[in-house]
């Protein structure tokens, strides 16, 4: 028979557990609610389609920062996606279970844990200084590739591993080469998973600041080449908050960021669901 105190503890503990959930949810609501409440009124067509004036004023819109962000993501993906997929294919399809593979895996794990600002230091030393790309979108993108590589590799590898082993056997048994098997069966089957990985990386690229702060320069002007400096939406929030008094513009930009992130999360979940279904054959 349960004694009273066990029941009371149970109640108390459950209250604590539910309390934890409620607080977490409240934190999210407060943060997102506050930013949207403060920021949404500042978002209009003009805000989205004019360039920021930069500097002290904080006036103007966010067009050039959106363009810089897109440039940055574009170059980052051009490098990141092939290397990431290649690396994931190696780990999931070729890598023997030996010391070398363990070293590679350890390297990826370690890289994933390194703080953004260290990547920034590295990018500053290598891309900005030694390779003389200066403070530029290119330097930022190269730094970002290094930062995002572990995410891209591990998420893609998971997608590849989710492809049934029996497909591989079936393909090989039909007399395909290993690469035909990978490129015609494994990779196509994993496409939704790989797309999810790419979107995940885009989401992180949009939110990243520290490593870009020290490699991208931060010019608010519309970039006309990759060797020019630029500022992403996230960097713009930082500059607005720290260098101007335009908190309304900072909030509006932050609201844009939050909306993008919400959309990206929804898209990822949708794709992940599709992927599961497809692999289970309910398509």
């Amino acid at each position, binding site marked *: 028979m349960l004694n009273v105190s066990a029941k009371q503890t149970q109640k108390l503990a459950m209250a604590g557990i539910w309390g934890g959930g409620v607080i977490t949810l409240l934190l999210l609501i407060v943060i997102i609610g506050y930013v949207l409440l403060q920021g949404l009124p500042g978002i209009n067509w003009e805000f989205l389609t004019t360039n920021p004036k930069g500097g002290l004023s904080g006036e103007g819109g966010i067009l050039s920062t959106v363009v810089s962000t897109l440039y940055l993501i574009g170059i980052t993906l051009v490098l990141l996606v092939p290397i990431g997929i290649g690396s994931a294919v190696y780990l999931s399809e070729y890598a*023997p*279970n030996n010391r070398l593979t363990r070293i590679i895996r350890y390297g990826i794990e370690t890289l994933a844990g390194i703080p953004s600002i260290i990547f920034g230091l590295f990018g500053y030393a290598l891309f900005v200084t030694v390779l003389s790309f200066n403070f530029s979108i290119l330097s930022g993108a190269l730094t970002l590739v290094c930062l995002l590589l572990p995410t891209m590799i591990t998420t893609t590898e998971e997608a590849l591993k989710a492809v*049934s082993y*029996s*497909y591989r*056997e*079936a*393909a*090989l*048994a*039909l*007399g*395909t*080469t290993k690469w*035909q098997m990978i490129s*015609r*069966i494994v990779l*196509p*089957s994993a496409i939704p998973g790989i797309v999810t990985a790419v979107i995940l990386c885009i989401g992180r690229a949009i939110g990243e600041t520290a490593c870009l702060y020290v490699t991208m320069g931060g010019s608010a002007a519309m970039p006309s080449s990759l060797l020019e400096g630029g500022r992403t939406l996230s960097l713009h929030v930082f500059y607005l908050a720290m260098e101007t008094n335009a908190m309304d513009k900072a909030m509006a930009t932050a609201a844009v960021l939050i909306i993008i992130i919400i959309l990206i999360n929804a898209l990822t979940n949708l794709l992940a669901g599709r992927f599961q279904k*497809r*692999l289970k*054959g*309910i*398509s």
Partner: protein
Amino acid sequence: MTEYNLNGQTCRGDKIKAKNLNFYYGSFQALRDINLDIPGCAITAIIGPSGCGKSSFLRLLNRMNDLIYGSRIEGTIELDGKNIFDKEVDVVDLRKNVGMVFQKPNPFPISIFDNIAFGPKQHGKKSKIELEEIVENSLKKAALWDEVKDKLGQSALALSGGQQQRLCIARVLSVEPQVILMDEPCSALDPMATLKIEDLMRTLAKNYTIIIVTHNMQQAARVSDTTAFFMMEPDRAGSLVEYGLTSEIFTNPKDKRTEDYITGRFG
């Protein structure tokens, strides 16, 4: 034994010839000293208790064991008199010649048509007319054409289990192999679907050499011409106990262990 008279035709008695075959996973010996001649244009069943190495043996025949890191082979397997483990043998060509059907139906998550066309495409057949012809013929040979001819564009995963397995057989047929290996092809299917596959196997046996690993002794007795009985030795290595015409193995086994197994005394 050089020639058989089976299925109303004369067949080469040693289409596939395993000689002093030993197979290891790392330090573990999975097969010991296998000597076995498999006739062409016939169905050979491999039976035996779980873990006796019968699936391992089957997978050696098209070198699927190559995929297993740390596996090692001694001895030879000859296909039409040529050792398949020879350096100059192209494993991709070998697998094209020696097709395989797996335990669980494993159609690719693409359309029915693309499933069948996949193999020929990889082997360089590109023209649409050619591919359409191959798909139709393969599906007809696999007795699936009438059921799917109107929905070739649909996902293969939407088919029933039995249909999927016949699709997999059709897929193997599409690359025109000489030998078809079947690894317990009916273990995931219901009795009706199993019967259909068995009928299909009998039909195919006229033109193909079929080797089937099965748990189901009735199935072996029903479909096969010759039967090999494998067993595990005390150190867990699999070895061949007895081999002969199916009728003889099931009615008059020479080895006591075969008799025990067939009459259900163990296994």
